[in-house]
């Protein structure tokens, strides 16, 4: 056995705490260690070259790198071994940064001793390492995109343009998402509809995109390259093959419901197309409100439909799709301020609205035809107050994080009030104005220059006085409480993960952060990959972001999908569980603990003509190498490759030494 050990300083991250030369000295004396050296940045090209040269010079057959977490650079160093002709799995890492230097900064002597222990452990394990070999599995070159907002559409179009098939599933009757509800977008003030509606048409038209609206994903099985997806097409109660989209049904429907698209400021019918530019531009029946379904009476739409498309008996349909990759683009919802902010009236005052409601009102397509009006009486509000950070940066009532988009859209809305209502007064309460984006600071300054009065402070209470609202806030720059009589108050409410995100995370087996947004695997280097291979993240389902960032994120997710498809096959990770069928008793306790549904029972012929017996078998495509089965197996039949019982015992005895 000829083991080479390489200790990294990681600049001062490790070297500033751990006495690296001392570690080198101690490790050099360990049995089996043929050479030991250190370097400032072992992951850099000169560092890698040092390892390559040592492998050749000392004819090394095992390599130990003591540096940062293997999550960060295990792959980097495996490539170094491969380039030197060694099996890449003959590498063992000792994490002396996160597990040592960073957490023991105050105790350098103890940190050095611990670093030596950690390396000794790695050397002991390295002595027991065996070469492992990857396998190639073919990839289904077809992608599923969940969510038809701007992120999902971007990802779908990018993948489709690269020549691959896409299934796009949207839960609402139309694609378009939140962006289709907006009026103008910052910082260019171009109209959202002018950008999004052509994209919606392009998605619908694209021959490579199969569009499923009013549908939801109910199961995600399989593994990277080979997913089996179950989709529920919710009953629309309208046969889209027959429907011409003439609109007579909506016109005649006697049942009026608050419009989700207009955020409760306008109405729609029980049979409806969400908005005139909807894609597809055909109606669905909202069975929760339709009189036919709630009271068993009515039937007007069926009677008036000239093409006989209305079908009350239609049922939900489940069907399967096979795809190689999944993009989650389920977007955001607005924080429900009406449950949290009693001081702003819990939603009891009609003239306190959200930024999204303001967008609908301000939109030519909206309930007021683009006029800014008081919802209470339709009057023109001459005093408009905007309140930022409602639910954001509020760990007591809302979310601790900053929602990132509110500063800019508030500045935009403030400008729009000043443009649309001559002589209007606009006050914006803010804590900080965060304008980190191209042309964003300029945009905010422009709103100020046009007359928006920014007041640094939060609002403590809003209450009605006659037909006005009294807004009690503070000007912290002045050091005084301030009061403003307002006709309309617009709340910039926080962005929260889109409804159904938690359920989808469960189906897809992807992890979420503490606020419920999908968790990327690495915040800087792998921002669009989820914790499950082959499942990618696009847009604000991963964290609050604006439209430009969302589109960039979605494009990145599409590139990852295309890269997977272009390769055509995936190289499986050989660190998977292996079952020794001779020892397996078929109890299947392993199957119960496997979080990846990778264990299946299998019948094998028993020896000597006895009846068949059951054993467990691991699907190596699904296995993620967590080791739960191995630890559970009572008969010791399961070994995790690269973490065999023998290897782990060697590590433990080295540590106890």
């Amino acid at each position: 056995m000829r083991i080479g050990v390489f200790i990294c300083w990681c600049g001062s991250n490790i070297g500033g705490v751990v006495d690296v030369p001392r570690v080198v000295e101690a490790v050099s004396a360990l049995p089996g260690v043929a050479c030991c050296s250190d370097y400032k940045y072992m992951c850099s090209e000169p560092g890698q070259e040092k390892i390559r040269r040592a492998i050749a010079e000392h004819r090394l057959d095992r390599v130990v790198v003591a540096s940062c977490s293997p999550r960060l650079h295990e792959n980097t160093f495996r490539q170094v071994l491969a380039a030197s002709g060694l099996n890449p799995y003959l590498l063992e890492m000792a994490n002396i940064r996160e597990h040592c230097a960073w957490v023991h900064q105050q105790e350098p002597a103890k940190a050095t001793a611990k670093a030596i222990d950690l390396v000794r452990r790695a050397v002991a394990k390295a002595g027991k390492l065996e070469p492992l070999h990857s396998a190639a599995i073919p990839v289904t070159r077809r992608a599923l995109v969940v969510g038809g907002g701007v992120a999902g559409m971007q990802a779908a179009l990018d993948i489709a343009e690269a020549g691959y098939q896409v299934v796009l599933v949207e839960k609402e009757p139309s694609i378009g998402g939140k962006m289709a509800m907006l009026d103008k977008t910052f910082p260019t003030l171009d109209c959202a509809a002018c950008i999004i509606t052509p994209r919606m048409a392009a998605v619908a038209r694209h021959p490579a995109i199969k569009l499923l609206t009013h549908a939801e994903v109910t199961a995600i099985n399989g593994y990277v390259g080979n997913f089996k997806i179950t989709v529920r097409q919710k009953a629309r109660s309208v046969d889209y093959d027959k429907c011409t989209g003439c609109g007579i049904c909506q016109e005649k429907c006697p049942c009026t419901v608050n419009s989700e698209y207009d955020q409760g400021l306008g109405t729609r019918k029980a049979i409806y197309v969400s908005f005139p530019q909807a894609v597809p531009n055909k109606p669905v029946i909202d069975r929760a409100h339709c009189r036919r379904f709630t009271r068993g009476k009515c039937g007007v739409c069926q009677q008036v439909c000239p093409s006989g498309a209305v079908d009350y008996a239609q049922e939900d349909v489940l069907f399967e799709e096979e795809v190689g990759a999944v993009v989650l683009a389920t977007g955001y919802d607005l924080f429900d301020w009406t449950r949290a902010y009693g001081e702003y009236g819990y939603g009891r005052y009609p003239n306190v609205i959200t930024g999204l409601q303001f967008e609908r009102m301000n939109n030519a397509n909206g309930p007021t035809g683009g006029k800014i009006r008081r919802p209470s009486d339709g009057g023109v509000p001459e005093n408009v107050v905007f309140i930022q950070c409602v639910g954001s940066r509020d760990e007591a009532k809302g979310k601790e994080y900053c929602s990132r988009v509110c500063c800019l859209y508030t500045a935009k809305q403030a400008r729009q009030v000043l443009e649309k209502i001559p002589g209007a007064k606009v006050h914006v309460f803010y804590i900080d104005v965060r304008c980190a984006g191209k042309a964003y600071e300029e945009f905010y300054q422009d709103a100020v220059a046009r007359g928006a009065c920014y007041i640094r402070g939060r609002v403590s209470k809003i209450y009605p006085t006659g037909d006005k609202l009294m807004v009690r806030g503070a000007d912290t720059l002045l050091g005084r409480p301030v009061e403003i009589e307002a006709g309309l108050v617009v709340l910039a409410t926080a962005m929260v993960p889109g409804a159904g995100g938690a359920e989808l995370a469960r189906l897809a087996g992807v992890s979420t952060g503490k606020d419920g947004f999908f968790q990327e695997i690495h915040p800087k280097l792998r921002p669009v990959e989820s914790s499950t291979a082959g499942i990618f993240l696009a847009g604000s389902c991963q964290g609050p972001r604006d439209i430009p960032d969302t589109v960039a994120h979605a494009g990145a997710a599409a590139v990852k999908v295309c890269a997977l498809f272009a390769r055509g096959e995936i190289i499986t990770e050989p660190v998977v569980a292996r079952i020794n069928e001779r020892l397996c008793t078929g109890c299947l306790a392993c199957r119960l603990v496997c979080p990846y549904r990778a264990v299946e029972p299998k019948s094998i012929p028993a020896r000597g003509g006895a009846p068949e017996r059951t054993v467990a078998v691991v699907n190596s495509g699904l296995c993620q190498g967590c080791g739960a089965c191995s630890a559970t197996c009572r008969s010791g039949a399961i070994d995790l490759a690269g973490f065999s019982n023998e290897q782990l015992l060697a590590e433990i005895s080295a540590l106890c030494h």
Partner: protein
Amino acid sequence: MQLAYYPGCSWETSGREYDLSARLAGGKLGLEFIEIKDWNCCGSSAGHSTSRLLATALAARNLALAEKMGLDLTAPCASCYQRLALARHDLLADGQLRKQVNRITGHTFHGNMRVRSILEVVASLGGEHIAARVVKPLRNLKVAAYYGCLLVRPRAVQVDDPENPQMMEKIMAVAGAEVLAWSHKTECCGTSLAMNNDQLALPLVAGILEAASLSGADCIVCACPLCHFNLDYRQKKVNRVLGTGYQLPVFYFTQLLGVALGLEPGRLGLFDHFVNTKPVLQLVS
């Protein structure tokens, strides 16, 4: 239901009608109040303003006495409630503090009792229980329910939502009154300042009276002797200093509830307030 009763220092003086009406109305509702023998002052704002430890210890002695009775404690006064409940909360949350305070009071408090505001006690009886005993519904009476600070803040001891509480509204509605939505039900009346800097409290009292008047209320109902004294007695002063003309009777919720339960107004102390209550009481009869 039996409860250890903590009357509070105002029970024989400024808050007499609250004590009277709470005992009488409580009796009608099947609540049996057993006064804690030998209770001491909770320290009120003077206590916690001077020393948190002192405030906790003064309250803790009463908690320990109630605990020995084997009963939950109820206090009519919102200030007493808040002090006692906060002390209980702090003592339960911090074992070290509990040991220290037990040494200071000479009584061992284990934490095996609850502190309940009388408002919450009555509300928890439920609408049906109360409605079944209402004999004289308060028809034609529009009330603005005023909670002030101490029942709804801070979060650890709030009896109801701090911005839009509904307990008193529910009780008053069951008693037959019309309850109004209004803006100042949990605004501070400034009573702790009124005792030493009364002119500072006047704008606060005025704001509450104005909001209640704007809502169209015939009267204010409250659940605190300090708020009551401040809103009732100082109304005249507000009128004099600020040139207003408020004539808004202020009642304890137990008084109006008592009327609905058929108790005689005189026994409930309904005519002992500063602002004339007769015109409003005529609305009911």
